[in-house]
C-alpha cells in the first residue's frame, strides 16, 4: 500500500490535459460531425428534419441544448439495433445492458470503437495508478455486460498483465490472488467487499497478498464503502464510471487524488440537468447526468439521460487534467419522490440522518396522502447507546433529525423513532421507500 501511495501522477493521453479553449473547439468540431453522422439513424433523422437541425446549425456548444434528448425508453423502442449509424457488416461486437430495469437493450461497436474504448479505459486506469509492470485480476462478469471486456482491453492497452478471473467463485478468486499475486483488483465495489469478508473469515492476512489498489465501478457506492474496502483489503480503491449506452466503463474515472471522476471530455459532452425542468443546474449542484458521445461510430448517442444523479465540479484539479469532474453517483432519478411539489431523494434523507450523531443509517421512508396533502414519515431505528431515560433528550434527538431533514431536503417530515432491528434488512438493493399514495385511490 505504501508503495502505491508514492506512485507518480501520470497522464496517459495529452488529450486529458488540453487547454480548455482548445478542448471546446475540438468538442464543437466533433459535435458538428456527430450531427452529420446521426443523419444515418432514422430516429435522429426524423427529429432533425422536424427541427431543421443540421451540421451547420451547430455554431457553438450552447446549441447542444437545442438537440433532442435520448432516453432509455427511446432505446427500447429501437430494439434491437435500430440506432446504428453504420451498416451492420461493420460491427465488431455487440454488448447489452443487464435489463434489470426492463427489457434489455443492445449496444454495438465497430473495430475503431473498440480501439477507442480500450484507450479510454487505459486513461482512467493510468490515472488511478496502473502501470505496465502491474498484474490485474478482473473479477467482473465477462459477457454482454460491458464491465469485463471493457476493463480487460484497457488493461492490455496499458501493457499490464490481465488475469481474466471473471465474477464469482470467491474461493478461486482468493487462490488466484494468493498464487498469481495480482497488484490490482477490478470488480464491482460490492464484490470487493465480499472478497474482503471472505479473506477475513478465512483468516488470511491481507498483507500476505500483493494487492495495492483496485478499480471499482458498475454500480453506485458510498465513501463509507470505500473506507471499508481500503481498510479491509489494505489497498486504495478507485472509482470509475460508465454505462453501456454511452460506451461502457471509461466515461470517467478518478485520479490519484480520489476527489471526483475526470470525465473524458474529448469523447463525451456532459450536462447536469434538473430532471423536472430539464434546465442545467449550477456547478456543484446535484442533477441528472446527460452524455453525448462525440466519437463513437457504430451507435453514437445524443444527450442520453442516464437517470444517474451526481454533481459536476469544473474547478481545476491539481493532477494536471483539465477535464471536468463528476461526483459519485448519489442516486437515481427513478428514486426521486415528489412530496408536496418538492423533489426528495432517499439519499438526502440518508445524508440528513448521517449528520445527526446518534442515528444508525437504518431507516424507512413512508409517503402517504391521508387527505389532500402528502405526508412524509421517516422511521429511524435508534441505536441502544442513543437511548436515554430522559424524555427531553429523546425529544431533542427527534428534533435534531427533523431539523437536518428540513435543511437537507427542504421539507418537514414526521420523524418516528423505532426499536433497533425492527426495519427490514436487505441483501441486495435496499428498498427504503414505501409510497402509499397510490393505494388509496387505486393509482399513483
Amino acid at each position: 500500500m505504501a508503495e502505491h501511495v508514492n506512485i507518480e501522477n501520470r497522464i496517459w493521453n495529452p488529450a486529458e490535459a488540453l487547454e480548455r479553449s482548445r478542448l471546446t473547439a475540438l468538442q464543437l468540431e466533433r459535435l458538428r460531425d456527430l450531427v452529420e453522422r446521426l443523419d444515418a439513424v432514422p430516429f435522429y433523422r426524423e427529429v432533425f428534419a422536424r427541427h431543421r437541425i443540421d451540421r451547420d446549425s451547430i455554431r457553438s456548444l450552447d446549441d447542444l441544448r437545442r438537440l433532442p434528448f435520448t432516453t432509455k425508453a427511446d432505446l427500447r423502442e429501437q430494439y434491437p439495433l435500430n440506432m446504428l449509424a453504420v451498416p451492420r457488416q461493420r460491427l465488431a461486437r455487440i454488448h447489452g445492458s443487464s435489463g434489470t430495469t426492463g427489457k434489455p437493450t443492445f449496444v454495438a461497436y465497430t473495430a475503431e470503437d473498440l480501439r477507442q474504448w480500450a484507450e479510454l479505459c487505459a486513461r482512467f486506469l493510468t490515472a488511478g495508478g496502473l502501470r505496465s509492470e502491474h498484474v490485474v485480476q478482473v473479477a467482473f462478469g465477462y459477457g454482454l455486460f460491458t464491465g469485463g471486456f471493457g476493463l480487460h482491453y484497457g488493461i492490455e492497452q496499458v501493457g499490464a498483465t490481465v488475469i481474466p478471473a471473471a465474477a464469482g467463485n470467491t474461493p478461486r478468486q482468493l487462490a488466484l490472488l494468493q498464487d498469481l499475486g495480482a497488484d490490482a483488483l477490478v470488480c464491482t465495489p460490492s464484490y470487493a467487499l465480499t472478497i474482503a469478508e471472505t479473506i477475513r473469515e478465512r483468516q488470511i492476512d491481507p498483507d500476505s497478498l500483493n494487492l495495492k489498489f483496485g478499480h471499482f465501478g458498475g454500480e453506485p457506492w458510498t465513501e463509507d464503502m470505500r473506507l471499508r474496502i481500503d481498510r479491509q483489503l489494505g489497498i486504495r480503491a478507485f472509482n470509475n464510471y460508465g454505462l453501456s449506452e454511452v460506451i461502457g466503463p471509461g466515461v470517467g474515472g478518478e485520479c490519484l487524488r480520489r476527489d471526483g471522476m475526470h470525465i473524458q471530455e474529448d469523447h463525451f459532452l456532459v450536462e447536469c440537468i434538473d430532471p423536472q425542468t430539464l434546465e442545467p443546474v449550477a456547478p456543484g449542484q446535484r442533477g441528472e447526468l446527460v452524455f453525448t458521445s462525440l466519437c463513437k461510430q457504430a451507435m453514437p448517442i445524443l444527450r442520453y439521460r442516464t437517470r444517474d444523479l451526481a454533481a459536476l465540479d469544473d474547478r481545476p484539479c491539481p493532477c494536471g487534467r483539465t477535464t471536468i469532474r463528476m461526483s459519485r453517483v448519489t442516486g437515481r432519478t427513478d428514486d426521486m419522490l415528489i412530496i408536496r411539489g418538492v423533489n426528495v431523494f432517499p439519499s438526502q434523507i440518508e445524508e440528513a440522518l448521517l449528520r445527526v450523531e446518534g442515528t444508525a443509517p437504518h431507516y424507512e421512508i413512508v409517503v402517504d396522502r391521508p387527505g389532500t396533502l402528502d405526508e412524509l414519515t421517516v422511521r429511524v431505528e435508534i441505536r441502544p447507546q442513543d437511548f436515554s431515560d430522559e424524555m427531553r433528550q429523546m425529544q431533542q434527538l427527534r428534533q435534531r433529525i427533523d431539523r437536518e431533514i428540513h435543511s437537507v431536503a427542504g421539507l418537514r417530515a414526521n420523524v418516528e423513532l423505532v426499536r433497533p432491528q425492527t426495519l427490514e434488512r436487505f441483501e441486495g438493493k435496499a428498498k427504503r421507500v414505501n409510497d402509499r399514495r397510490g393505494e388509496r385511490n387505486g393509482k399513483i
Partner: protein
Amino acid sequence: MKLHQLSLFVENRPGQLAAPCRALAEAGINILTLSLADTEQFGILRLIVRDWQRAKTILEAADCVVNVTEVLAVEVRHQPGGMLEILEFFEREDLNIEYTYAFTAPRGDKAVLVFRFDDPERAVDKLKNSRINVVGGVELFRDVD
C-alpha cells in the same frame, strides 16, 4: 441507597408494551413497580425489579433497548400533606426532580415514592442528613416482594 431502574424504549403501537412484560414473565421476574412516560411517537417504560442485571440481560435478549438509571426510593407519610412535606424539603435544598412515581403497596403507614433527580449524588447527600427515610434495595425488596 440508590436503586437501579430499567428504562425501556417502547414504540407507540399495540403490543409494544406486552413484549418486554412477556419476556420478564417467562423468566419469572416480578415487576415491583413501573411507570410509563409517553409521547405521540414513543414511550419510555421504567421498571423496578429485584434482580435488575438478570432482567436487563433477559430484556436485551428479547431485542429491547434498555438503559439503567439510578433512582431513590423515599418514604413519605401516607396521609394528606405527606407528599407536600417532602416536596418542600426538596425545594429548600434546591433538588431538581426529573420524574417520580409510586410503589403500589404501602410500607406500614408510609408510602414509597421513586424519585429521579437531575443530580442524584447531591440528592443522596441532602437526604442522608435529613429525617427523611431513603429505603435501600435490600429492605425494600424484603417488604414488597
